[in-house]
């Protein structure tokens, strides 16, 4: 069974057709890169998968609970990192010991009692990742998670996601930073204007060339 099955998903916001008849899948045990130019419909698709946005047509199915890191993750500036994670655990019914565990995992334990308003972009991103890890989910969905992370943080995230896939989890990772996906993904899904352009293993799609070349060729971005 696939971890994520998107079939014939469509969504319009007013006159803008964000996602059109989109179908793809993602497997357990793999990191799937979800690529597309800005405005291709990546964020809308991920939000439909997570139940935050209602699809006009089609379905997005998850074969288990998913943790999510969404783009520009925001927090209440007056609450501490620990309170944020604790309130999520209580809402979802996850064991509250996960708060300290994930704080340790993302290396925020030392600042857990500080208000999030004083956090740097990178610290917020780590807190968002901790929020996604809280429920120990078999599926991870990340929308541009590298935003705000420094090189060391990006490497740390890459290793974390690779390790999660190695444990048999499914990781769906959207990005427009191709080198980032090139380094981590097993499979690649490419969309443009809300439509599927290509799907397959990275090796198949690139056929020996770089992911960047393959991406530009497939999305018509070559000149």
């Amino acid at each position: 069974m696939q971890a994520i099955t998107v079939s014939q998903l469509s969504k319009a916001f007013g006159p803008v057709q964000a996602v059109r008849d989109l179908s793809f899948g993602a497997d357990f045990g793999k990191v799937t890169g979800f690529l597309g130019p800005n405005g291709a419909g990546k964020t809308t698709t991920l939000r439909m998968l997570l139940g935050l946005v209602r699809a006009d047509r089609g379905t997005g199915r998850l074969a288990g609970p998913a943790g999510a890191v969404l783009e520009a993750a925001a927090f209440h500036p007056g609450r501490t990192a620990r309170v944020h994670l604790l309130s999520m655990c209580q809402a979802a019914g996850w064991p509250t010991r996960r708060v300290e565990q994930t704080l340790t995992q993302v290396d925020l334990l030392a600042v857990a009692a500080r208000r999030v308003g004083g956090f740097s972009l990178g610290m917020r991103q780590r807190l968002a990742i901790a929020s996604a890890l809280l429920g120990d989910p078999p599926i991870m969905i990340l929308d541009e998670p590298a935003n705000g992370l420094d090189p060391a943080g990006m490497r740390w995230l890459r290793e974390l996601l690779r390790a999660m896939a190695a444990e048999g989890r499914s990781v769906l990772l959207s990005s427009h930073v191709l080198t980032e996906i090139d380094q981590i993904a097993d499979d690649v899904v490419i969309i443009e204007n809300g439509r599927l352009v290509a799907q397959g293993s990275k090796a198949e799609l690139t056929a020996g060339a770089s992911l960047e070349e393959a991406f530009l060729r497939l999305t018509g971005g070559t000149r």
Partner: protein
Amino acid sequence: MIRSELTKLTATRSTWVLAAMAGVFCALWTVVVVVTIEQPSGEHIRSAYQNAQQAFLFSLILGILAMTSEYRHQTITWSFLASPHRQRVLLAKFTAYGLIAGLGIAAVAACSTAAAATVALGVRGFPLTSAGLPRVLLGATVSTVLYAMLGVCLGALIRHQAAAIAVAFGWFYYAEYLLVWLLPEVGKWVPGGAAKSLIGFNLNGTLTLLPAWIGGPVFLGYAVLLGVAAYAFTTRRDIT
């Protein structure tokens, strides 16, 4: 779920600021009212204690913050990710911000009003109690809680924090006051008029109010109506 909301509620400074302001505000109004009393009739003594209902403004704002602060800081995304059953999130907000925090603010208001009234009435040498006080305080408590629930609904519907507070302030503080005083036949049916009936606010018989046993259900009806709208809106909305 409710514990999660209580965690957020108690960890946020604005909660405590609003509760403290409610206490101070009620006490000040009580003193002002006692100072202006000319004859210490039972009705006038009661009117001092009726200021416990002035806390409604703060429980209303706290209720509004329940949902609008989630939208404002985009934490609504986390809330709905942790609990995809949105109606449960809304229900937990009603319980935590409406019932529990509403009761808390009502208790602060009742205590500070009673304390201020005792001191002020004592200083003026008036009797400290009169008949019907329990009903005044009960009515103030019920209406403070109901206002908090109305606030939760309003916040869920309007979402923009400043706009929701401005609408609530304009309606409940100005428009309703004018209706109650100038168009009592209409005014007695609006939430503020119904709330006044709960505390038997009718100084010198100048107001036309519903009897409390109708006013209470009328107020509750507004809360239920707005609650249904908030439910429909919250469960359908796209969180982008």
